[in-house]
């Protein structure tokens, strides 16, 4: 059955390591600023549930998704690329094609590092919404905001450059906000960061 908040949920499929943390936090902030709710595999960190099952459940509860495939690199220790992001993109596209009627209007944004790089690795996705950010947080914010404005029909969203300014302001205020809540701004979990971003955006914009 379609969940009540299905139309507000956005699944994020991206790397969850320290190198990507700033980009991840910026995308989470942008989605929240635009009035949508972020869902990702990190939302139930202690769950004993199988990780893939958890991802399937989340995808089934999200109308939208954002997939950052910019980190398809060979791991120096294993000499193999990580396949989790293309796998989860495939699951989302499969849900859209084969899922119940309300899944047919699922929408996804694919982010990559450079234009047309995906043609060398996952050329079958040509024709979908693919944008590139070149590792720039500001560019990623603008891509996500513009895609949401176009696909969701929300007419009054702040522009990407405004959201970027708010993101910088939020980052500046975050240590103080964390201090008030006995948290360390450098060690926030996804749930903590998402909760603080929700509170900040709702109270500020």
């Amino acid at each position, binding site marked *: 059955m379609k969940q009540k908040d299905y139309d507000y949920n956005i699944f994020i499929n991206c790397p969850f390591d320290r190198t990507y943390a700033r980009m991840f936090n910026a995308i989470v902030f942008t989605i929240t600023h635009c009035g949508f*709710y972020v869902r990702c595999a990190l939302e139930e960190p202690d769950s004993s549930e199988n990780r893939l099952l958890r991802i399937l459940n989340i995808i089934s509860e999200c109308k939208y998704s954002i997939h950052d495939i910019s980190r398809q690199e060979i791991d120096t220790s294993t000499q193999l690329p990580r396949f989790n992001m293309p796998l989860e993109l495939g699951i989302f596209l499969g849900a859209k094609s084969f899922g119940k009627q309300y899944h047919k209007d699922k929408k996804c944004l694919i982010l990559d590092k450079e234009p047309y790089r995906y043609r060398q690795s996952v050329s079958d996705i040509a024709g979908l919404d693919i944008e590139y950010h070149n590792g720039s947080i500001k560019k990623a914010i603008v891509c996500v905001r513009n895609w949401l404005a176009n696909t969701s029909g929300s007419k*009054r969203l702040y522009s990407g450059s405004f959201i970027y300014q708010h993101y910088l302001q939020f980052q500046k205020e975050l240590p103080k906000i964390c201090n008030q809540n006995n948290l360390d701004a450098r060690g926030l979990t996804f749930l903590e960061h998402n909760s603080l971003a929700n509170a900040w955006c709702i109270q500020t914009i």
Partner: protein
Amino acid sequence: MQAYCIKCRAKREIKDAKAITMKNGRPATQGVCPSCGAKMYRVGKG
């Protein structure tokens, strides 16, 4: 509707949930944590 309570460090059902509208026209929900009484916020409609 559930949200993460930053004081309890846990997901809780929002008590006294009130629908509000952000300046960009998007709906949001605010209320309090049923356990500790801290304010809770979440974008989206409850």
